[in-house]
């Protein structure tokens, strides 16, 4: 009798469970069968009236039913939850990552980008990065660099003069004396800065441009070291193992002075229109610092030697980014400058 009762109850539970297709319905089924006032609970209470033998069997049957019911509710609950999640995902709004929106990306000036590159490279090689003024005087720009008055080298540089006799520096070399006086020897420093030449502006010429000067002074710094540092630095800057070559070049503040060429970055040295089929690009003047310049900087040329170089940062930026018109740099045009929006 009791067993029939239990089987009937199991059947009706299964039927009710199968019909429950929402969380709420399932909860109702759970309460109606497994709740404290539910039939299973009633059956448990009915066990009191049974004989010990009957009680043992009946207890097992009822417990089996209860365990089955609880497991089935839990399982059904989990299934319903998964179905609900799946339904939510199915019905979710699909987003469009290509939808255009106004977003503000800032940009660095290309000179800042190439300067940071070069500064980083030299910092790792133990060079101090120094600042220098834009307005200086005849002494720093010329005299201290072994360029006396009436020297033809001054012909090469058309200088902006200020009414008080000062001038706008025509090259970053103007900082050499200042840096030597500030630090003395030994010395490793680079000094990026803005330079000025009084000339008409066109696509290839600017009266305002950036250079970076570097100096290394110590006992026994040699031409061989100069070639090494220039090759290493320029290979880093261009991200390729470049060849460099030195040619004699004349600068009053170096002796010997060199023009440094790099293997053409466009053709790799095979020859192309960019390098006039020579395989080489003229990149930077450099040389061993002239003893007069060291002496003027308070450094004894009999004890110390050094090299210096000047790198055209504006030219470097043009080469690196393929800027054809130098005027873009000072144009303030965001159509041009906002393109430099990554490191």
């Amino acid at each position, binding site marked *: 009798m009791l067993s029939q009762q239990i089987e009937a109850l199991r059947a009706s539970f299964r039927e009710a469970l199968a019909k429950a297709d929402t969380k709420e319905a399932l909860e109702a089924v759970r309460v109606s069968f497994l709740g404290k006032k539910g039939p299973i609970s009633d059956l448990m209470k009915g066990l009191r009236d049974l004989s010990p033998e009957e009680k043992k069997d009946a207890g097992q049957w009822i417990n089996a039913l209860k365990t089955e019911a609880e497991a089935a509710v839990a399982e059904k609950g989990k299934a319903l939850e998964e179905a609900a999640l799946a339904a939510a995902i199915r019905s979710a709004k699909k987003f469009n990552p290509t939808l255009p929106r106004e977003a503000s990306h800032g940009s660095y000036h290309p000179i800042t980008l190439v300067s940071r590159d070069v500064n980083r490279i030299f910092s790792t090689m133990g060079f101090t990065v120094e600042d220098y003024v834009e*307005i200086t005087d005849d002494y720093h720009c010329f005299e201290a660099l072994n360029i006396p008055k009436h020297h033809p080298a001054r012909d090469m540089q058309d200088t902006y003069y200020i009414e008080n006799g000062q001038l706008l520096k025509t090259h970053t070399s103007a900082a050499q004396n200042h840096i030597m006086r500030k630090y003395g020897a030994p010395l490793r420093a680079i000094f990026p800065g803005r330079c000025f030449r009084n000339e008409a502006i066109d696509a290839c010429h600017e009266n305002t441009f950036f250079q970076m000067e570097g100096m290394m002074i110590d006992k026994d710094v*040699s*031409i061989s070291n100069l070639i090494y540092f220039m090759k290493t630095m320029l290979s880093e800057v261009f991200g390729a193992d470049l060849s460099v070559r030195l040619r004699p070049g004349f600068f009053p503040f170096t002796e010997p002075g060199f023009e440094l060429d790099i293997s053409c970055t466009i053709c790799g040295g095979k020859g192309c229109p960019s390098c006039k089929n020579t395989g080489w690009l003229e990149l930077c003047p450099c040389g061993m610092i002239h003893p007069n310049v060291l002496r003027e900087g308070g450094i004894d040329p009999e004890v110390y030697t050094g090299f210096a170089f000047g790198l055209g940062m504006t030219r470097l930026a043009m080469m690196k980014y393929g800027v054809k018109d130098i005027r873009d740099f000072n144009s303030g045009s*965001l159509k041009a400058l906002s393109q430099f929006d990554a490191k």
Partner: protein
Amino acid sequence: MLFSMNWIRDFVDLSGLDIPALIHRFTLSTAEVEDVYFKGADVSGVIVARIVSCEAHPSSDHLHLLKVDTGSGIVDCVCGAPNAREGLTVAFATVGGTVPTPSGALTIAARKVAGYPSEGMCCSEAELGISDDNSGLWELPADLPLGTDVKAIYDVDDIVFEVDNKSLTNRPDLWGHYGIAREFAAMTGRALLPVPKVELTAFDHLPPVEIDVRDALAYRYIGIKAENVTVHESPMQMKIRLYYCGSRAINFLADLTNYVMMELGQPMHAFDLRKVDKIEVQRFEKPFSFVTLDHEEREIGSETLMITSNDEPVAIAGIKGGLASGIADDTTSLLLESATFDGVSVRRSGVALGLRTDASMRYEKMLDPELAPVASARFLYLLTKIDAGATVISAATDKYLFRYPTIEIDIDKAYYDRYTGIDIPTDRIEVTLRALGFGVVRTGDALHVTVPSWRATKDVSIKADLIEEVTRIYGYDNFEIKTSVSPLYPVREDRGREADDVAKDVLVKSFGYHEVHSYLWCDAARYKDLGIALPQNPRIINAQTPDHDTLRASMIPTLLSFLAENRGFAPAYGLFEVGKTVHGFAADGSCDEHKALGIALYDKTVSEEEAFLTVRDAVVAIIRAVTHKTPVFAVLDEPADFMHPANAFAITVDGVTLGALSVLHPAVKAKLDKKAAVAFAEMDMATLASLPVAPIRYKTPSRFPAIEIDFSFVADPAAVNFDELCALCREVGGALLTDISVVDVYEGEGGSSIALRFVFSSDERTLAKAELAPYTDAILAALGARGLKIKE
């Protein structure tokens, strides 16, 4: 400058060597070769031939029908040259031969010209590329054997290379072929041959030339007279060389002075002896006009050194001769000048006259006075060789007033080793120096070096110069590349640059602004467009345009122009620049230069106040990032004329003013853009970088919950100084008050209000709201006393 290898090979035997490779070597050892021209390469099959008959073309007014004897037969040729005539010996391009044209070699074919067969071409000099004379056929001497290739008789073939004059500025000795030949001799280890010349002492018995040098700007002046010159046209070989090197043939004597100049680098001048028979060198107090050889009338100032004859000006010393005294077609006697003038003076006079000549360019480089007699002797050698009848009729009269000192330098191999970083044997050093003309006395590894006169005028004076002489010939591409062995020292960071970088990063990455660059000077036109007055500031005295002569005092006006010019780029954009400004003159008279950061924001989508606050936020973010401090803003006493008088604020940290924050003056705004909000700020970056950095003081966060209490007050937000208000609340709020923030600012109908949030917390326990009442009461009382009443 153009250099002919044929000419160079007069002085150094380069046989068996690869000439183009040598020219490349020249680039690496001496000066950059910009171009190499293979002259005569397109000339082939051009022979000596003779016109044996010449008839007019029946229906052409200028064509001739020729029979030409090529030495191996007679061929027909139709020719339009005006000087074609029977018996003329010509250069004849045979069928299959080539002549140069601008578009490459042209191959001669047998064809009909104007109805008649033509089997070759009689050539002008220009058609063969050996001169620019295209007036008629090249007339060859009648005694040349017919059928001979013209290249076997004339140096049509040559390799000519071009060097930029600029790369020779420091080398006066390289302004002639002989100096270049010396370089090739040193590079190849071959001998440099002497220059064939006469002995000037041979004329010592002749009467001297009257020469009176009255000015120390003339270092040396040699004058020689010669007569009976009957040759008026230069030999073809000479003409070809002059032409290949960029000079036009004029007449024999003028060409010869040019030839010697291009060979030795010494400018010379030939006066017509009929006009000039004595020489003075002097300057004139009063300006006067003088007509030079090129028929130009020129104003001569008191700085310009002149050659005169009987006080009549006949030439501008070292620059150009006069028209009246120059060599004419009928000149048969001359007074030859070979002189040295002060280089600086020649350059200055040239600049004053706007005249730069082949001669003046050489003098500017500081010529060697020892070259003057050599050039005279060379000139006379060539003159008498080409014109056997020409006779010297004076002594070579030499006024030598300024001598450069002899330069001697002691150097040793150890010095070379230290400077080069490589091992160049002493033998090699000695051989190289000798090849370049240096005198060397060697003792072991020590060298006592005498600088040759042609390098001693300014070029070589110290040991480092001798390093270069050896290393450039040794070849930098033969150097071993080595890193330095100097010890490493700590890198000293420049705080100023670091602050610039931080500011740029904040503006680009956090605010999305764009970095721009502009000029150091004000653009007067742009200032005018915006109605901004040019500052009273130091000025450039030689600006390209007066519009660009005033140095900028502020970064902002240019940024404002940039804002206006970029309208249409986007509805909103921010710009900034780190650059230099000048604040008048400093006490010592120098320009007071500052490094400044300018920021400017253009925004069509927000209110002016919103734009102002965004720029304020940027300023605060930069200052916090650099100094870890928060600035305060106080009304600016004297705003610039482009700033809004009511809304201009000084940016101050620890009592140090860094710059200003403002929006546009309404008058400027009206000119820039009425519809957009514009705000800007400027800060002195050096001052910012000099501020001490506030350290980060870490405090362990309380583990107990905080209590937040909000109050709303009736107040006009514009009239409240939030900085002061917060400070006041902190004063009376007790130790448990850990934060105050503004949670709402309301301005609108029914009045305005602000809502403040007070956060209390303890490190030791959970607070009860009731225990805070005394503090909130104190805060409310303090604020009430300031006119802030609780909103009902």
